[in-house]
């Protein structure tokens, strides 16, 4: 029996220690996904908490033959689609705008590596532009792209998580990338 299965069984039996272990084990991957989905830290934290609440509510229905992480991501994506994608959380977006600065990020990175500041500022600027365009992309294209690059998930896994055909996943990723390229090219011109 693998470690996660063992922890899940203890959680089902009501062990709060096992619940803590399960969260600790998957906290980084889930939090990273919520950050990428929600566009701001405050919504990401809410989504992280709500996902875990739903996970524990539905834990008895989890099929142990499936990957726990994929199931966790599916719940997270459903919660996001139900509650976050259509809501305009202006306060959180404004708070986030004032708390992040690309230049600061570049400066921090340079201090820890051997890359020149100029090089890193250019790279960070490119990344910020890409991030901006990715944020503006429709969720139909954005979510498959995020899942594909974030976790190196296969088309089949993404199709299962989003409950759409594999061919649709492929075409949405390719179309999404095409749109991103187009937007970036327009900005360079």
């Amino acid at each position, binding site marked *: 029996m693998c470690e996660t299965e063992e922890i899940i069984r203890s959680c089902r*039996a*009501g062990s*709060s220690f096992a*619940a*803590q272990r399960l*969260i*600790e084990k998957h*906290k*980084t*991957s889930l*939090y*990273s996904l919520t*950050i*990428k989905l929600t566009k701001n830290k405050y919504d990401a*934290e809410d989504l*992280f*908490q709500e996902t*875990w*609440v739903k996970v*524990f*509510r539905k834990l008895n229905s989890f099929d142990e033959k499936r990957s726990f992480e994929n199931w966790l991501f599916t719940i997270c994506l459903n919660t996001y689609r139900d509650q976050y994608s259509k809501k305009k959380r202006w306060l959180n977006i404004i708070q986030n705008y004032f708390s992040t600065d690309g230049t600061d990020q570049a400066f921090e990175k340079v201090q820890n590596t051997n890359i020149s500041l100029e090089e890193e500022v250019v790279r960070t600027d*490119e*990344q910020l532009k*890409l*991030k901006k365009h*990715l944020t503006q992309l429709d969720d139909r294209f954005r979510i498959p*792209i*995020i899942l594909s*690059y*974030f976790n*190196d998930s296969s088309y089949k896994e993404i199709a299962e998580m989003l409950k759409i055909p594999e061919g649709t996943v492929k075409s949405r990723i390719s179309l999404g*990338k095409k749109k*991103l*390229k187009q937007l*970036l*090219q327009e900005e360079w011109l």
Partner: protein
Amino acid sequence: MSDTHHKASIDTQLSELLNTREIPSDYLISKTLKKISNQEEAKNYHRVWLLGLVSMMLFWLEIGAFLYFAGYQLITLAVYTILSSSINLVVGLIFLQKRRLMKGWKLQ
């Protein structure tokens, strides 16, 4: 810039942007754990009350049935009531312990 270059560049950039990991704060983890435990407690609390209500109704139904069939006799009724409620209480507690319904009340 050629299209192939763009393709490679966007793949690399997307990978650099999205294949990163962020660690949540300990505060967020403890808040999450608290939320889960509160939810469990609330769920258990409601279950216990519902179970209690159903048991109470069944108990009075039982007394009614006893009076209907055995007729009113104070001593028999008193002995029967005490015995029946004690058995119900013990069985109920065992049932609750088994189902871990009293987790929130720190009885286990």
